[in-house]
């Protein structure tokens, strides 16, 4: 059996989500838009899920629009906000963000929006002062991640939210990696839009949500029927939404105990790696970081080799992002933090989650240390050209 330490890519479904999925598939589904009683039951289930998701972030149920995932929610937030931006042409983001934020912003740039990409500090934190300094009365949107997927840094969102409100800009927080891990209230600090993803907290992939604060108007992006209060057309993914709801409820209820457990395990992992691998370096802030995420630079080895060797030994971690061909690319987050390409190529992300067990940490620690020793001897970095590819 493999040891799964890649929760930031996707958490295994929680037992509550699996049970709810089985129940729905066994005959409790239907189209919430139908008039008949099956439809009515479906509608009740959908609305219950909406309430459960809303509760996790202190929102009202009507502020939640279900989407096909975090990527659609981020695209919706950006395109929807900019469609009604009027004369405001500036967008503020950071160089650390997920591709589902950076790619639509790149597209907006070609249509005449000015994209300000704030540089993070060396620990992967976006300095609020730099964001606030960039805010002006031409700013349409501030879009930032609450928790960074690669290094786990937590954004100091309060001063940014306040400044965005003063400037009249829409404030969008991508909370896909934060929800279920840290306490969140979408109204405190005040967010206008917030992205959520089900499978990061133990729901199913293929469903997410966008929180849209009551009173905020953004343009729907998927047009058709009047579903989701006319904000997102299409028959909703009822099974996925129900699983999302129960997973959100379970994650919320267990948050404090899980956080403490994960913090203890992650600390043991870090201490063990430091003892066994001289020179291993933690990327990301020491404080203001979610405990589950350990991004580490391993001295003298290629991360790609470590990743594959660990997989062959049954320890599953990740590195940067996968390209279309399935090869790994160095993390754009580490590069934005000022790490060299060589350092980024020597880095791996280990991310724990709700079902990680202490025995797995002990076993993984032994495997990682052994594999690092083998890889660093067999494939010494000094002899390998790892510069930029021409």
């Amino acid at each position, binding site marked *: 059996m493999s040891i799964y330490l890649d929760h930031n890519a996707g958490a295994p479904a929680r037992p509550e989500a699996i049970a709810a999925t089985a129940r729905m598939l066994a005959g409790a589904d239907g189209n919430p838009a139908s008039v008949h009683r099956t439809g009515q039951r479906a509608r009740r289930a959908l609305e219950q899920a909406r309430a459960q998701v809303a509760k996790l972030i202190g929102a009202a149920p009507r502020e939640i629009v279900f989407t096909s995932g975090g990527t659609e929610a981020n695209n919706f937030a950006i395109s929807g906000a900019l469609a009604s931006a009027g004369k405001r042409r500036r967008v503020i983001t950071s160089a650390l963000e997920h591709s589902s934020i950076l790619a639509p912003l790149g597209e907006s740039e070609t249509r005449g929006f000015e994209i300000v990409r704030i540089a993070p500090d060396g620990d992967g934190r976006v300095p609020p002062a730099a964001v606030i300094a960039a805010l002006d009365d031409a700013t349409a949107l501030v879009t930032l991640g609450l928790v960074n997927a690669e290094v786990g840094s937590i954004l100091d969102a309060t001063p940014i939210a306040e400044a965005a409100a003063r400037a009249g800009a829409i404030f969008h927080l991508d909370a896909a990696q934060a929800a279920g891990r840290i306490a969140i209230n979408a109204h405190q600090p005040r967010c206008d839009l917030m992205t959520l993803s089900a499978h990061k907290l133990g729901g199913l992939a293929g469903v997410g949500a966008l929180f849209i604060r009551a009173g905020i108007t953004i343009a729907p992006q998927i047009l058709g029927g009047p579903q989701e209060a006319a904000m997102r057309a299409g028959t909703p993914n009822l099974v996925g939404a129900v699983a999302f709801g129960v997973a959100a409820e379970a994650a919320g209820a267990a948050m404090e105990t899980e956080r403490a457990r994960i913090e203890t395990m992650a600390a043991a992992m870090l201490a063990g790696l430091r003892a066994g691998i001289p020179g291993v370096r933690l990327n990301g802030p020491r404080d203001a970081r979610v405990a589950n995420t350990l991004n580490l630079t391993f001295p003298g080895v290629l991360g790609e080799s470590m990743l*594959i060797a660990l997989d*062959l030994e049954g320890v599953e971690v990740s590195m940067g992002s996968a390209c*279309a*061909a*399935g090869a*790994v690319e160095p993390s754009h987050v580490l590069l934005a933090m000022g790490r060299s390409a060589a350092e980024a190529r020597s880095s791996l992300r280990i991310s724990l989650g709700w079902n990680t067990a202490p025995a797995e940490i002990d076993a993984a620690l032994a495997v990682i240390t052994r594999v690092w020793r*083998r890889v660093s001897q*067999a494939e010494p970095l000094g002899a*390998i050209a790892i*510069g930029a590819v021409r």
Partner: protein
Amino acid sequence: MSARVLVAMSGGVDSSVAAAILREQGHDVVGVAMRLAPEPERRAARTRATCCSHEDFEDARRVAERMDFPFYVVDLRAEFGARVIDNFVGEYLAGRTPNPCVMCNREIKFDRLWERARALGADFVATGHYARIERGSDGRFRLLRAADASKDQSYFLFSLTQAELSRTMFPLGAMTKAEVRGRARALGLANADKPESQEICFVPDNDYAGFVERRASGGQLRAGKILDSNGNALATHSGVHRFTVGQRRGLGVAAGEPLYVREIRPESGDVVVGPRAALNAVGLTAREVSMVDPSIRQAGPIRAEVKIRYRHPALPATVTIDSARRAEVRFAAAGPAVTPGQACVFYRGDEVLGGGFIERAIEA
């Protein structure tokens, strides 16, 4: 526990069947596809049947799924650029005609990939090459031609050392191409009838000259004159990298009899042409000579059959190797055009003794 074997997979039928055979034999197979060509060239080549494309990787991945072994894409672009492409460009600029497949085998598949294999805990590297490895009663490894003479690829493998052969597997060495395709069909592999790649994988549209021009800086390109054997200028040309010794077409020179490139002088930019008969060399010198069994080198001149190109019959010759890893080859009868930069490989019957890279022809 069974040996772990790292199989280099291109997505083609040969390496797929090689991996499948090893898996059926019970080895702990790990499939890898190598990203080698730089991105702009890959994009340019995407519509063509070259290797290293996304579709090829997916073909390899499907074989791994069907045969139930792990598969990964590994990024060796930096090493391939530094050790194979830069060499390829440099050779053309120096007026020679390189063989990048030989370099890729020497530098990447059986060197750099072996480091990776060890890092992954593998004991062997396997490929879909058509060639055989045998271990003699004296414990020495021998590299032999494939059973299928029409597919034999031992020419490209001459630089393999005893240490490399000891950790290498060629599962297809005893099979014909038809048998390989038949095996692929029997195993239900989707790429059983996939056409072979013929071109150099990193050069789009087989346009070597254009590739060299894109990779070289302008000052490195050596334009000059086309001269006849008496030194008379017949025409001008835009770079020596556009010519290969023995080439007939595309000279841009009209003459009564067919003219061939006899010699390329990169320092002056002169390209000397002459009639067919002027090309026949009696021998050649080679550099970077290596012997599969190094003890042979000390034994003085050796009789061998020498291949001076991949698709060329082996010629009887005498080979003398000096201590600086250089060799002088004398053909038993006047040979054909000798192209500097190509590999020359020494055979004795089916056995590869060694080889090197052609430096220049020895004229009569």
